[in-house]
């Protein structure tokens, strides 16, 4: 077993089962954590999956960040725990202030659902340590609001601190600096628009997502899990 992962489920999340299947295929134990919970179970890693949390009303992630569970997610992150937000989970983490920047509507105003090529620009990150420097990964995106933005001063700090882990090789959505995935300053919280959980099996056309999820699982201490 390679770690225990809490997958946060909001009303409107729709990728939690994909995340569970992918993470368990990589050896993890997973637990769903309903958004009304005020504490996390005994987990090493927290994943916020994709979907449309709380209907994405007002702005994507704007209401989800006030869900009771987010206090516990914040505590986990502040204690150095590993947190990954995928797509809508990325949007939630930005709204919560756990990641820098914000996700705008795609520059072409189209919902985009297709494969994209990504470049690993920081393989020292715990979220890409299995990748070679500059390795190309093929992982799908599936979003309308994925155009990442932050103010120019902050971008300078983010670049200087090597927080951009993944960049698009051909920018599909107008994201600033081609950013597809970025960490917080400490490097333990990561958000990305592509869906690594959808690229983990031979039948999915690419297994490059396992590079990302597997890297993340490598951070967890080895432990035995009782079969539930």
């Amino acid at each position, binding site marked *: 077993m390679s770690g225990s992962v809490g997958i946060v489920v909001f009303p409107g999340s729709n990728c939690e089962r994909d995340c569970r299947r992918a993470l368990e295929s990589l050896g993890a134990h997973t637990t769903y954590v309903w958004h009304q919970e005020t504490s996390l179970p005994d987990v090493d890693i927290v994943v916020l999956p994709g979907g449309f949390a709380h209907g994405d009303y007002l702005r994507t992630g704007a209401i989800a960040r006030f869900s009771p569970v987010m206090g516990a997610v914040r505590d986990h992150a502040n204690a150095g725990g590993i947190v990954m937000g995928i797509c809508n989970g990325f949007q939630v983490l930005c709204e919560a202030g756990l990641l820098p*920047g914000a996700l*705008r509507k795609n520059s072409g105003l189209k919902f985009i659902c297709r494969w994209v090529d990504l470049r690993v620009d920081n393989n020292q990150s715990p979220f890409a340590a299995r990748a070679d420097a500059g390795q190309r990964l093929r992982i799908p995106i599936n979003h309308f609001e994925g155009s990442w933005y932050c103010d120019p001063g902050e971008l300078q700090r983010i670049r200087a601190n090597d927080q951009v882990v993944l960049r698009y090789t051909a920018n599909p959505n107008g994201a600033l600096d081609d950013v597809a995935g970025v960490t917080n300053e400490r490097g333990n919280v990561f958000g990305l628009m592509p869906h690594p959980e959808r690229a983990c099996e031979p039948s999915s056309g690419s297994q490059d997502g396992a590079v990302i999820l597997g890297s993340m699982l490598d951070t967890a201490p080895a432990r035995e899990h009782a079969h539930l």
Partner: protein
Amino acid sequence: MNFGAVVDVMLKPGIADPQGQTVERALPALGYAGVEGVRVGKRIELTVDAGTPEEARELVAEMCNRFLANPVIESYNVTLL
């Protein structure tokens, strides 16, 4: 006392507004030439309970900073009715 308020939320100047650009490009097709600077935002109407107009304004501004607008990409304007 109840105060009606209107909040206008706009993308900050300098942040690309693809909706506004699309609207701007569509206007000439209807015969409106020479229109520029189209920006699309949202309007939120609400009623708040506060002691004074100043308190009402402060309360709504606080809501905007925490929730109604995203300060990374949006600016807001509060109008009391």
